[in-house]
């Protein structure tokens, strides 16, 4: 093959390669959508049109259990306001400041609390929460926009706010995020079923029902999940090792509630207890050495059950503390 012929072949190959690249340089754009200012519009990053954001006004005392945007506007000086947020057990609460107009220097405030606090009693308790109490309060006036989005550590959160000037207020967007292993939960309903799993974590988890309920524990696993049950997975109850305790009381803080029963041996089969207290908590204490799981059902006690306590009932004990 002559050198000239080789050169021509190379030339043809180069041409073919160049043409292939050119064929990729295609740009299809619908004329209707051609907008030179489209890149500067915020619509590119907006949510899909089908996803409508729920909006309503926030009241001075309020409870919010769904996602959406909530706006508080003071029509008169509002000095003592609070709003509770609650999600599903397997959700975190995220609060995002969209717009805040308050006079911090004049005494207004807007604080987010990681959990619920009622009459000075917190849920989760200080023992069960990863943060110290002081860090559970996030003050907008102090943190300002450095903490524009706040996520709770469990399915409940609340805000405290004071707005003195009529017309001032704020707008929040509340969303939920999935929580794979819910640890501290307040149930939205007095009836339900839940499985509390603590996978090799050294932490204490509480499930609270703020109603007088009958608790039926159907399954308790303290140890490995493969069915190899330990005869004695821990040193025993009495606050040592891994165990589950039932608490009852008239406050929100599990650490201030009465221990009614302790379960430190795995078992299958229902074990029921009626607890006539304002608040019932199933609390699991885990050392982190094992994966622990407890499944239970709860139902609200009927009025006749509260009036005529019998059997496994702790109503008198709760009433004595009122």
């Amino acid at each position: 093959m002559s050198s000239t012929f080789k050169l021509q072949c190379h030339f043809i190959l180069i041409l073919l390669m160049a043409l292939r690249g050119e064929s990729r340089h295609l740009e299809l754009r619908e004329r209707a959508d051609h907008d030179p200012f489209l890149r500067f519009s915020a619509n590119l990053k907006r949510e899909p049109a089908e996803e409508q954001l729920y909006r309503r006004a926030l009241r001075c005392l309020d409870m919010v259990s769904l996602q959406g945007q909530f706006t508080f506007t003071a029509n008169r000086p509002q000095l003592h306001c609070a709003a509770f947020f609650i999600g599903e057990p397997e959700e975190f609460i995220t609060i995002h400041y969209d717009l805040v107009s308050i006079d911090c220097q004049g005494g207004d405030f807007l604080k987010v609390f990681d959990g619920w606090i009622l009459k000075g009693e917190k849920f989760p308790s200080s023992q069960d929460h990863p943060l110290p109490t002081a860090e559970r309060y996030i003050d907008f006036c102090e943190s300002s926009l450095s903490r524009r989005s706040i996520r709770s550590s469990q399915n409940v959160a609340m805000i405290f706010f004071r707005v003195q000037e009529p017309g001032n207020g704020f707008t929040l967007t509340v969303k939920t995020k999935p929580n794979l292993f819910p640890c501290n939960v307040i149930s939205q309903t007095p009836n339900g079923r839940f499985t509390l799993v603590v996978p090799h974590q050294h932490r204490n988890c509480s499930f609270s029902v703020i109603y007088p309920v009958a608790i039926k524990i159907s399954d308790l696993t303290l140890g490995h999940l493969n069915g190899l049950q330990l005869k004695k997975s821990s040193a025993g109850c009495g606050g040592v090792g891994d165990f589950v305790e039932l608490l009852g009381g008239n406050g929100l803080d599990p650490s201030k509630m009465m221990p009614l029963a302790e379960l430190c041996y795995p078992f299958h089969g229902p074990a029921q207890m009626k607890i006539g207290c304002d608040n019932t908590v199933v609390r699991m204490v885990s050392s982190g050495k094992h994966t622990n799981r407890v499944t239970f059902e709860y139902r609200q006690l009927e009025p006749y059950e509260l009036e005529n306590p019998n059997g496994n009932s702790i109503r008198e004990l709760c009433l004595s503390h009122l």
Partner: protein
Amino acid sequence: MRLPLLMSAGLLLVALLPCPPCRALLSRGPASGARQAPQYSQPLDFFQPQPQPEQPQQPQPRPVLLRMGEEYFLRLGNLNQSPAAPVSPTSSPLAGGSRRSRDKAAANFFRALRQQLPLPRRSLNSPAGPGERGAESTLGGHQEAPERKRRSEEAPISLDLTFHLLREVLDIAKAEQLAQQAHSNRKLMEIIGK
């Protein structure tokens, strides 16, 4: 012979090379495939526009952070507008007579509730109080410490609410949630029906 051949090949290459970047674009406007940036993963991104799905045709103004004297504002759009976004009943997806009556009932309930509420704790005698006082004192070195201390002492960090009232507001919230779910289901059925 070779030189003209090479020169012609070079000229052809220059003429046919695609303009960088070599790309293929298929754009149909704000498509569903467009990557949605997480809305709240950048707390310092003050100038990230806020989504308003109910007004897709209006360009979103950028937020502006102002500090005017003693006040802190986080505004969107016109500086002359009221800082707090007004709530329009028509913007609610549940606008309707039933919702208004439910809202009115809830508002009446909360009005009665506030009248029954005792004064919130001010003495900070709760377990959270000393903790917060400690947090306030550890800040230190701040020029606004007296104002902040005064504010923290006056700030109610807890709410005196009975469990009965807590359950009542929880029931109202659950009813609202169910109503919203019913509304969403109705809209979904309407879409499917089309």
